[in-house]
């Protein structure tokens, strides 16, 4: 173990040790759920801070962990979102009598898996990171026992996840059989023969599962709906960030292969198109807000795939910027939902929210506008960025499709917003006001507004993300 190795896993260490610490504290002191959540949040922030402070540098573990600006960027993102998700959790923890210790530590473990995935320079590390990300999420999805269908989502998520990781793993195995190595950069140097390509294809399939790209997306709506809402928020962000970073690393590595004629562009473009169409259409008819947002998050995987399909030098910054904005927006939207009395409200249930919690509705409006991609919100800039990247790659048809999909998406986003403005009492008597949670939500909204008008700092940071 060298200093480089240690710095490479510093954030990971903070998260895993923190997770263990939470379990211990829970067992020993049995503190209130809120305290545990705050402790978890501190750990998440600490991980983000660690990553930021350590910064980029030489890879660790012989290339197994990459420590480039992308790692830093996304580790900070994952840590922050996890912390934020924990900060909005206390209400749900109390209301649904969730086991706080396990809840917090599993979320931290899952985040640790995410940081591992974004940093992996080796397919084995990638796989292990993916499992570390997924296993806690299976459990967290099953955690909401009071809910009628809580178990169903978890069961589906698990069975599909297991099969998907088998697919991914088989892809790794074929790549190993074709090249004799699992290091990304070494794989990138290898010759692309059918076996190699078969391996890459299966690997992409496995990652597309995590990213929830159609047709690997079917788990997402059910799992999102079943999971406690703050978990959904974290899951929707961290899994997607990790999967897309992995895809981009893969694309970048194999794209440089001398003989590799890997047609990433077409594959990703087709995935993106299928995702946009299916997710957008599916979201239209949803009654459950959570499920609607789940499809929205799938649709955004489609937009991200548009950026990834650009595959050039601009893909990295564009996707990074999009991911950051998407993270804030999606987290924010789910976080608002987590503040309602019902864990799984229907759209009609939102009626009257404007009168009772105007601040939440304003924040929700910001998030929904952003998700729609309405200018001048940051969501618009993010879309412009990925579309721009795709256009540079001559993918006009895909951009047109994407823009059209965002139009249709306005229909369901606005439906949610308008429902909040409607008169009546839709049975969403909000939980007793959680000041911290509200604060986090408002802060997120404020950040989005800030980025909308002063996007340059985030754009600069994203510009560093090159794979």
């Amino acid at each position, binding site marked *: 173990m060298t200093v480089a190795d240690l710095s490479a896993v510093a954030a990971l260490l903070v998260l895993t040790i923190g997770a263990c610490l939470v379990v211990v504290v829970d067992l020993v002191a049995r503190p209130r759920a809120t305290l545990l959540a705050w402790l978890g949040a501190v750990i998440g922030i600490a991980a983000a801070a660690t990553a930021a402070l350590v910064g980029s540098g030489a890879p660790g573990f012989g290339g197994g962990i990459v420590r480039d600006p992308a790692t830093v960027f996304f580790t900070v993102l994952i840590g922050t979102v996890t912390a934020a998700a924990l900060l909005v959790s206390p209400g749900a923890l109390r209301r649904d009598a969730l086991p706080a210790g396990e809840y917090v530590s*599993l979320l931290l473990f899952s985040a640790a898996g995410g940081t591992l995935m974004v940093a992996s320079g080796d397919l084995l590390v990638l796989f292990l990171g993916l499992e570390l990300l997924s*296993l806690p999420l299976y*459990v967290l999805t*099953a955690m909401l026992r009071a809910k009628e269908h809580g178990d169903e989502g978890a069961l589906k998520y698990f069975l599909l996840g297991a099969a998907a990781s088998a697919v991914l793993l088989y892809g790794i195995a074929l790549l190993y059989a074709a090249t004799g190595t699992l290091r990304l950069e070494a794989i990138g140097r290898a010759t692309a*023969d059918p076996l190699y390509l078969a391996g890459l294809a299966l690997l992409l399939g496995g990652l597309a599962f995590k990213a929830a790209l159609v047709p690997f997306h079917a788990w997402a709506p059910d799992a999102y709906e079943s999971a406690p809402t703050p978990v959904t928020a974290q899951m929707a962000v961290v899994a997607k960030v990790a999967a897309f970073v992995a895809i981009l690393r893969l694309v970048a590595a194999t794209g440089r292969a001398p003989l590799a004629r890997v047609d990433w562009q077409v594959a990703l473009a087709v995935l993106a198109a299928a995702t946009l169409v299916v997710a957008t259409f599916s979201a239209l008819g949803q009654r459950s807000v959570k499920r609607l947002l789940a499809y929205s998050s799938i649709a955004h995987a489609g937009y991200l795939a548009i950026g990834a399909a650009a595959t050039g030098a601009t893909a990295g910054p564009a996707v990074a910027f999009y991911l950051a904005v998407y993270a804030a927006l999606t987290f924010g939207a789910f976080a608002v939902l987590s503040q309602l009395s019902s864990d799984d409200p229907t759209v009609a249930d939102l009626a009257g929210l404007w009168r009772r919690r105007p601040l939440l509705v304003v924040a929700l409006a910001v998030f929904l506008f952003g998700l729609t991609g309405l200018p001048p919100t940051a969501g618009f800039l993010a879309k412009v960025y990925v579309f721009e990247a795709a256009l540079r790659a001559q993918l006009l048809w895909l951009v047109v499709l994407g823009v059209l999909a965002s139009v249709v998406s306005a229909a369901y986003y606005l439906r949610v917003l308008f429902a909040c403005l409607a008169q009546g009492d839709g049975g969403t008597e909000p939980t007793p006001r959680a000041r911290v949670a509200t604060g986090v939500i408002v802060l997120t909204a404020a950040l989005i507004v800030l980025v909308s008008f002063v996007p340059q700092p985030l754009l600069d940071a994203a510009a560093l993300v090159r794979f």
Partner: protein
Amino acid sequence: MDWLAQLGAERAIFAVAGAICVVSAANAVLRRDPLTSALSLTLTLFSLAILYLGLGAPFLAGVQVAVYAGAIMVLLVFVIMLLGTEHRFPLPVTRPRLGLVAALVSAALFGVLAIAIGRGQLPTNVATTTEATDHVGAVADLLFTRYLLPFEITSVLLLAALIGAVSLARRRSSEREWPERR
């Protein structure tokens, strides 16, 4: 090592173990009764362990038998016996079209994979360190040097899985009794 002997032995191992493997795997997948499935799979695991032996991986063969067949499958069988009685007898087949889809998809999967494997140019067999003097030692060496990080991560993973499984199991006592079978 006698090449010819080894050639014969390996071929024989592949033929026999491979055949057992295919048959038992098919049995595991096709039989309706989950217990039969699990037991057939255990047989597959054993036959794979034998194949590993033929491939010069005695340590892994041991792990396969001890951990996979011994621990994982036993756990599975135990749970099946705990829960799975109701599926002993044939059930009406639900969603018959899915069966067709499954057959087509898996056939296509195998077909494409076979073509890819057949057309793939495997690197020519490099110098074979057939008999490491200390096989287990060599594996351990790798585990704690080159694969230190994955090793540690695996331990974290197991810890996380443990916490998760416990958290799901722990709350069982406080909740309602098992419901009647529907």
